[in-house]
Every structure is written in C-alpha cells, then in structure tokens.
C-alpha cells in the first residue's frame, strides 16, 4: 500500500528560492585624516561640526562627546533608486547654508566625505565656498576623495569608529569612473583653506586635512 504522503513527496518538488546575492560589503579602514582633524578642534565643549554626509547614529554619538552643535546636511541621495547622475545632490547642497541658523554659522570642523567626487568642478567650487563662509578662521576641514579608477555610483556612508577609523558602508555594488581630482586640483578647489596634511591610503582613497585661512576673500 502506498502511503498518501509518500506519494505526494514523490510528485511535488519544492524549489528552494535562489540565494540572494550578497550585499555590498562594509570595509573598515584607518583614518589618519580624521584623527588629525580632530586634534585641531576645541575640546572645551564649544566645538561646532558641519557634516555634509547623512545622519549615522554612531557618528552623532561620537561627535556629541566633544561638540555643542552638529549640522547634518545629508547632501546626496543614497540607496536604491537614488539619482546617481553627477551633481544629483547639488540642489540640496546649494541651499543648505540657508538652513543653518545664523547664530550657528561658526563651525570648527567640516566633514566633507565622498562629496566632491560626485559634483562637477563648478558645483564643488561653490560648495567649498559655502563651507568656507560657514567656518571660522582656523577651522579644520576633513575631505575624503577617491583616487582609484572606480568608485561606487552613490557615495558611501561613513561610520566613525573611535575617532581613528572609519567603516565604509556602500549601498550598492555598482561602480562608476572617478573624476580626475589630483592633489593639485584639490588644493585649487579648497579655496579659503590651506591643506595641512594629505594621506593616500592603501585602498586608494585620499584624505585631506585643511585649515580655514584667516583671510578669505569672497568672490
């Protein structure tokens, strides 16, 4: 006698769903630039930080340990469906200074992580000018710029790990070409700032630490 469940087992095949492709992997790298930039900001609790990236819980927690104010700009769309065209986030970038309350426009530290790669030279120049106008003389700027052949189509999310390391959290595996931004071009781009240190990391990312000049002539 054939048992009914056995017969069903013989005829019904259960297909397992195909394994999902692995998501983009998080990489952790040392950040000598961030470490250096943090050395130059006030440690008396008066520090004001301008972060052009998105809100990240660990970053807010870390920055709150020494700062009195944090402005999060979240300049460029991330994640699935994001508009990845060059300069896609510039609309928000160009208006963000107006969102900063007047009495807070005196930043000591600007975090410009993975933004300049994604803007046209003209847009990047306007952005840096806006940042310079919001920073006090002597303020530090920490920039992360890809110097490899390719980079993710949308900027990474960066998570501060203890002030000396960063977790690079890509939201996609898709890549695109990197605009040509050699150190000489970056130096020219960072008008209003003087580059104090640059670090070329083994994984092809360039970190710059710059100081806001005392005298800055607006164009």
């Amino acid at each position, binding site marked *: 006698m054939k048992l009914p469940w056995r017969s069903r087992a013989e005829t019904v095949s259960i297909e397992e769903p195909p394994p999902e492709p692995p998501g983009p992997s998080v990489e952790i790298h040392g950040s000598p630039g961030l470490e250096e930039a943090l050395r130059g900001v006030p440690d008396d609790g008066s520090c004001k930080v301008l972060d052009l990236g998105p809100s990240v819980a660990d970053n807010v927690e870390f920055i709150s340990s020494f700062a*009195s104010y944090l402005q999060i700009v979240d300049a460029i769309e991330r994640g699935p469906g994001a508009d990845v065209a060059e300069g896609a986030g510039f609309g928000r970038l160009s208006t963000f200074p107006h969102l900063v309350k007047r009495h807070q426009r005196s930043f000591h530290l600007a975090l410009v992580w993975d933004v300049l790669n994604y803007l046209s030279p003209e847009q990047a120049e306007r952005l840096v000018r806006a940042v310079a106008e919001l920073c006090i003389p002597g303020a530090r700027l920490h920039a992360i710029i890809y110097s490899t052949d390719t980079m993710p189509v949308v900027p990474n999310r960066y998570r501060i790990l203890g002030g000396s390391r960063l977790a690079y959290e890509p939201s996609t595996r898709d890549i695109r070409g990197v605009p040509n931004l050699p*150190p000489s071009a970056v130096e020219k781009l960072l008008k209003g700032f003087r*580059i104090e240190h640059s670090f070329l990391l083994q994984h092809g990312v360039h970190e710059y630490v710059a100081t806001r000049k005392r005298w800055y002539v607006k164009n």
Partner: protein
Amino acid sequence: MFKKDASEASTSQPRAPQTSGGRAPAPRRGGGQATIGPSITIKGDVSGDEDLLIQGRVEGKIKLAKHNVTIGPDGSVKADVHGRTVVVEGQVEGDLRAKEQIILRHTARVEGSIAAPRVTLEDGAVFRGGIEMDGGAKDGKPLVGTPTKNEKQGNAEKDEPAVKGAAGEKGAGQSLQA
C-alpha cells in the same frame, strides 16, 4: 478631542504607538495619552496636559512641555514640537525641542533642528538639520578614542595609510584616472 488610554496611565515613558492599519483607532478611556488618529488633520496649535500620540497630520505648533509626544510611523508633522520627551517614528518638518530626550527611530524622517539634553538617533533614521548638544568634553570625555558599539563587534582594520605628506609633496599625490 483627545481620548485617553488606561494602559498608559502608570508610565511616563513613551510607548510604541499602536498602528491601526489605516483606520482611526478605537476610542480610549481613562488614561494618560491622547491620540490623533490617521484620518485626522489638524491645522493650528496643539497644547494640553497629557501625552500625545500622532498618527495623523498636524500643521502648526505642538506645545506639551511637560508631556511625552510620539509621532507614530503613520504620523506626519509640519510643525515645531516641544515636549518633555519626543519620539519620532514618522515624518517631521520642523524644530524639535525636549526637556529630557529626543529619540529618532529607524523609520523617522526629520528635517529641522533638534535640542534636548539627550538625543538618540537609530540607524536608518533620516535626519537633516542641526543638533544642539551638551558638549561632552566638558565632562572630560576624550576627543579621540571614544569606543562605539561597532568597535565592540570585532571588525578588523584592513589597512594603514600608504603615504603621508603635505599636498603636492612627492609621493603624496597620485594622478587619477577619469
């Protein structure tokens, strides 16, 4: 206008709001939290003497300085919010101010400024604006080296800087490929 929930009368902490699947919640009785249901839109100022859960839309100002305000996952607020504790799970366009704490849950989308003695921001929350903080360095916390949760998870560092130097220094700058 506001209904009370008996189950929340004994606690001062904001509770996770009950989602109602797009329908207005059933009337509540005898408690400490009022609810603005998903079908309700208020234009104007909101004030009162009890905790508030917003699942609908509010445009104007919300002043509940002694009470907890929760903007639920379906809630949409275009207003400045002032509460004792403010918890956001939905959307807010406006300034948030709290006497004790502000919590942005992972579903929150907030554009505005935040001011509170304690601010908690969950990963996934989208926030654009300013956060006024206490400035922890006054308490002697170190600038560099503060451990975070992720460090405790044991992720290994991948590499060290290959080159260190001033911009334009030989070796520090490499030409890039377009």
